[in-house]
């Protein structure tokens, strides 16, 4: 009986977790990123810019989830900023997040005038994705990478930056 209840409860939690995850994708504006870049907490934010149509982005997404999973108790937060078209939130982005079982927080950036904000993330950014911004934690200034990561490399960069 006890086992049955536990299984039921676990199944419920798993299901619940899964659903909230799949449905919590929000549309954000530039100030969301600006606030992350200006935050002064000890938490290290690993912010990845991606899109469902970008093959190298999709390939590296699991590495970001793994990074978060392996540092669950550390002051680390992974945020995946989708540059997909916001009108595809229900038809494409949410189903994608659900299918790929993405655990990290996903938000959709609604700032179609890229030339108005990409330089503020980093002047060297060409606008290509995947791109990754690392702020907070032990970073002195934000770190920016316009490249596709493999897990070991991402891990080696991030580990020493966690407070």
């Amino acid at each position, binding site marked *: 009986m006890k086992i049955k209840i536990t299984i039921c409860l676990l199944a419920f939690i798993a299901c619940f977790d899964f659903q909230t995850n799949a449905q919590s994708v929000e549309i954000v504006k530039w100030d969301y990123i600006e606030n992350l870049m200006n935050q002064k907490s000890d938490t290290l934010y690993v912010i990845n810019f991606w899109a469902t*149509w970008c093959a190298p982005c999709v390939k590296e997404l699991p590495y970001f989830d793994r990074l978060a999973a392996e540092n669950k108790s550390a002051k680390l937060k992974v945020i995946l900023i989708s540059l997909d078209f916001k009108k595809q939130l229900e038809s494409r982005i949410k189903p994608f997040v659900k299918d790929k079982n993405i655990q990290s927080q996903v938000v959709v950036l609604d700032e*179609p005038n890229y*030339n108005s904000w990409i330089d503020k993330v980093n002047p060297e950014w*060409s*606008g290509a994705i995947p791109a990754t911004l690392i702020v907070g934690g032990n970073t002195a200034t934000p770190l920016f990478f*316009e490249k596709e990561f493999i897990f070991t*490399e991402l891990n080696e960069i991030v580990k020493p930056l966690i407070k």
Partner: protein
Amino acid sequence: MKKLLILPAILFLFIAAAPSETGFKVGDKASDFNLKNVDGKMVSLAGLKNTKGAIVIFTCNHCPFSVAYEDRIIALHNKYAAQGYPVVAINPNDPVKSPDDSFDAMVVRAAEKKFPFPYIYDVDQKVASVYGAVRTPHVFVLTREDNAYNVAYIGAIDDNTYEPENVQTRYVEQALDEILAGKKVTTNFTKAIGCTIKWKS
């Protein structure tokens, strides 16, 4: 192990940075090309008749940004070709990495959309490399001086890919209108937004 990891990273950065660093800047002389059009004929800048320049656009079939801009590229050609600035669309992508961008697929797409401009195939990717194109779509507005071509604008078509009704600034149109009015191009460079060009490995 560390060294092994760093080496590919450096190589990657070098490869990624190389085309844009060696490419044309605004004010440079642009080189001509001679590439196969979807109708099988070769197209070069010099071969275009009665032009004052050209709107060279590196684009492709598969990229959602390129697709989103197809109708606006057609509109650009329809507006400016008669004024001496036709569109020349160039697909630079490696069909091995991006099968939807093969020459045969270009022929199909050009027919579907009834492209009124040449859609030519940069088969060895040399033109994209020389121009310093990194995205699709990536625009180079050229002005003509006898048989020489000057780069007058490099970048994006406008400032809103997916909501044409919400575009604030039409960079290419603005540049062309200024050129046609004999004025200096005020915004002569923007960062082109779109897919990365799929280079051969």
